[in-house]
């Protein structure tokens, strides 16, 4: 019964969180956003004391319920492991292996140091919820969107506006590769060894594992009833049951309850410590695992991978060819309003890609820089940060992008526009333009004659930096291609005008 409850809740959580990442229309996060906010690491980074305390309490009471129900990466591994189970003669494929504590705690230590030092990319690499978010955003979302586009294709032919097309594109190649490699490693590890990743690599697993040693309720083997058949050990995906010694490594037990139903003698129960005080005390031994090395080498390689932008284009007969815009070289990256400052985002973001998934304007994409890998940054080749949209702040579970109102957004300066004379069409081609000024939502651009003496000379944009909020409307709508004649330079600290 406990197992069935666990499976039901876990699947519900997994499906809902997956939907949260797949939904590009921005309608679901209003209902499901809380699922992201109860994730451990985002809650820690958001300094959401209530959630953190709640999760710690949950673990101290019932063990690592978080890992087997709430964490999407954990449940995802259970799904993979379950499929692996269904192969012939593979139902009882696990065996007890001692924990490799030095690796677990070593990684945790490095992780904490990275967290404190603000090396966001390393934090993002290991954070389990974020890893899952990246996998969904990079690998599952395109399939979902293609499906949507197919429906939109039919809807269009049926004169229905229920579905609309969405653009499928790789936002950052390094992040895509990180997601693909994480997916491959996690899947292989889960296929072969169940919860190996959770009990060897995952820093959240290590922290909660440490707490769950002292959990009130726990799996307990009744040595009087146990005939040492090893079924529970062979069934344990955490490899934490030493059936010969009737010992359980509680730091690795994820409270999945599988063993309860496996035991044919009723020797395993999920009971409180006090009730089980007659049971034998438990010791633990380190364990070895091979997968972690592969993961770390793979991840290391990725950090060095150069960025390549995916390009897609369709050209029609009667229309002029439009060159794709290229990303200008910005001295300071642009981060969305609500982030407050680059520093704040760097220190709080776990790189889960929820904001990237939900950005309707193609502005946010994961950074490809080593120090901020996978954390969001803005660029305006496909769209600009539109005045009516504050979605990224609404969805961010880690408080890296704060929630702001549309009115607040209109006065937050995230950067300023810079004019590039040699690209500006009035200068190069002598045509009248002024599209930047026409679309500037804050009225920061005035068109002035290039030659102050000659009012008939071509009109060029004059940017009043004190009014510019850095939304990128000018950059996005500038007719000069591939490089705009006006682009936004980011600010380290966002000011309110």
């Amino acid at each position, binding site marked *: 019964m406990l197992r069935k409850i666990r499976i039901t809740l876990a699947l519900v959580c997994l499906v809902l969180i997956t939907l949260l990442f797949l939904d590009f229309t921005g309608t679901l996060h209003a209902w499901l956003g809380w699922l992201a906010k109860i994730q451990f690491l985002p809650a820690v980074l958001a300094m959401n004391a209530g959630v953190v305390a709640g999760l710690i309490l949950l673990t101290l009471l019932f063990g690592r319920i978080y890992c087997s129900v709430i964490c999407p990466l954990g449940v995802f591994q259970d799904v993979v492991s379950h499929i692996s189970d269904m192969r012939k003669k593979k139902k009882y494929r696990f065996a007890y292996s001692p924990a490799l504590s030095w690796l677990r705690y070593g990684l945790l230590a490095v992780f904490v140091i990275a967290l404190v030092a603000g090396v966001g990319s390393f934090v993002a690499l290991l954070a389990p919820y974020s890893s899952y978010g990246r996998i969904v955003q990079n690998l599952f979302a395109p399939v979902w969107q293609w499906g949507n586009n197919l429906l*939109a294709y039919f809807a*269009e*032919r049926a004169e229905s*506006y229920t579905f*609309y*097309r969405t653009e499928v594109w790789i936002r950052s190649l390094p992040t895509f590769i990180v997601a693909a490699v994480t997916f491959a490693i996690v899947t292989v590890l889960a296929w072969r060894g169940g919860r190996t990743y959770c009990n060897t690599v995952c820093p959240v697993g290590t922290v909660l594992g440490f707490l769950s040693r002292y959990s009130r309720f726990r799996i307990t083997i009744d040595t009087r009833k146990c005939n040492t058949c090893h079924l529970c050990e062979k069934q344990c995906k955490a490899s934490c049951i030493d059936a010969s010694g009737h010992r359980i490594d509680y730091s690795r037990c994820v409270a999945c309850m599988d063993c309860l139903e496996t035991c044919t003698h009723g020797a395993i129960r999920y009971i409180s410590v006090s009730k089980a005080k007659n049971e034998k005390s438990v010791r633990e031994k380190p364990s070895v695992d091979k997968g972690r090395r592969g993961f770390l080498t793979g991840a290391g390689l990725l950090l060095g991978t150069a960025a390549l932008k995916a390009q897609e284009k*369709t050209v*029609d*007969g*009667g*229309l*002029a*060819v*439009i060159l794709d815009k290229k990303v200008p070289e910005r001295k300071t990256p642009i981060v969305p309003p609500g982030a407050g400052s680059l520093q704040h985002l760097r220190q709080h973001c776990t790189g889960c890609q929820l904001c990237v998934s939900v950005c309707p304007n193609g502005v946010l994409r994961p950074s490809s820089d080593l120090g901020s890998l996978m954390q969001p940054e803005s660029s305006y080749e496909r*769209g600009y940060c*539109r*005045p*009516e949209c504050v979605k990224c702040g609404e969805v961010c579970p880690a408080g890296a992008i704060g929630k702001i109102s549309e009115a607040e957004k209109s006065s937050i300066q995230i950067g300023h526009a810079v004019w590039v004379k040699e690209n500006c*069409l009035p200068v190069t081609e002598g*045509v*009248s*333009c*002024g*599209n930047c000024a*026409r*679309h500037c939502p804050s009225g920061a651009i005035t068109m002035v004659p290039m030659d102050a003496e000659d009012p008939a000379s071509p009109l060029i944009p004059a940017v009043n930096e004190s009014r510019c909020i850095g939304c990128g409307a000018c950059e996005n*709508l500038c*007719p000069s291609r591939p490089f705009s004649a006006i682009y936004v330079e980011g600010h380290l600290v966002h000011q309110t005008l």
Partner: protein
Amino acid sequence: MNRRQFLARLGAGAAVTSAALAGCRPKGGAISGSGDGEIPTDKMTYRTNPRTGDKVSILGYGCMRWPTVNNGSARDNNDAIDQEEVNRLVDYAIEHGVNYFDTSPAYCKGRSEHVTGIALSRHPRNKYFIATKLSNFAPSTWSREASIAMYRNSLKELQTDYIDYMLLHAIGMGNNGMKEFEARYLDNGILDFLMAERKAGRIRNLGFSYHGDIAVFERALAEHDKYQWDFVQIQLNYLDWKHAKEINPRNTDAEYLYGELAKRGIPAVIMEPLLGGRLSKVHDHVAARLKQREPEKSVASWAFRFAGSFPGVLTVLSGMTYMEHLQDNLRSYTPLKPLTEEEMRFLFDTADLMMQYPTVPCNDCKYCMPCPYGIDIPGILLHYNKCVNEGNLPESRQAENYRKARRAFLVGYDRSVPRLRQADHCIGCNRCTHHCPQNIRIPQELQRINQFAEYLKQGLDLAPAIQKTK
């Protein structure tokens, strides 16, 4: 999109067709014969050209929209033209009495004359009249040699040694209509050359088609004694009859144009009887109004009957891509039942009603394209018109259908026009404006439509954006 709407429009007619084929004639056939499946082959209405005695069918075949192998129109894309289908259409048209075929070296991206020549040359030369034009629009073809070469090439492509109806193409169009008229036809002696060709019998009728600057039209008619125009091609339909100037101050009401021709006894050839499809794709209210009067006739049939009702009209041109277009138009004209005075008034009232909807008078002729900055100008304007006609242009946030209309406008916008080609990318360089035969102030219209889209996206009050720019 085009075809589907057309087919939907014809849906009723098609149902009746199949019923008739099955041998059970529908009741209420008394209303008129045009809903019937059978199209008679011997009932076509003919008009006599007073100058040559030609008996010209009231339906003229416009050859600017031949079908392509991918079931599109060759005007819109570069796909190969479906010659076999063209042959079928031409055969069907001739079989049902159509004998006037109007082409130009510019149509179908320069491929129309060739294709039309192939299809027509399969019939005896005395069964049909060929109309083509001297389409020397590009300054590079303004020279006498280039223009004459264009004329000779028309003869070759059309596989004939004489042209029945030769036109100076679209005089009055351009930034400076008068100057271009002079440069294209007068200064280089081409008009004299064509008159000599007429004398020699290689051109049987000489005329011109007119768009734009009224001074050019008036000048050409003032010199009628000198040039002896055999016919003139004008834009005429029940919207342009009284409202052309209202739609755009640079245009002239068809009432005046037709009147000037009738005064001089010059036969009129009618183009744009449907106003580029705007009189077949009308607002739902207008469609309902027309259908209520004649439930078994298409919306378009009203426009064809209108154009044909004027006695001075020699033929009414329609660019028919699909067999269904041809059949529907044949139904209107075999024979033509001229509008009664009461029906005429009804149509003018309809025109007044249509004027209340803020559509942009774009005929999708694509003369403005390609925009150097990649904007899909007709795509944007037609999407806007579609939303107007379907009632998806909410007047305020409080409007009852605001949410639904907003979604239809914005989602439909992205569907019709890729984002990179939408109105917000228009920089207002104005290079398109003087190419527009309807004299639409394109940048202003695009910026207005963009403002409307922007207001919808931001959920702002719509009142300022919905006003039509005059």
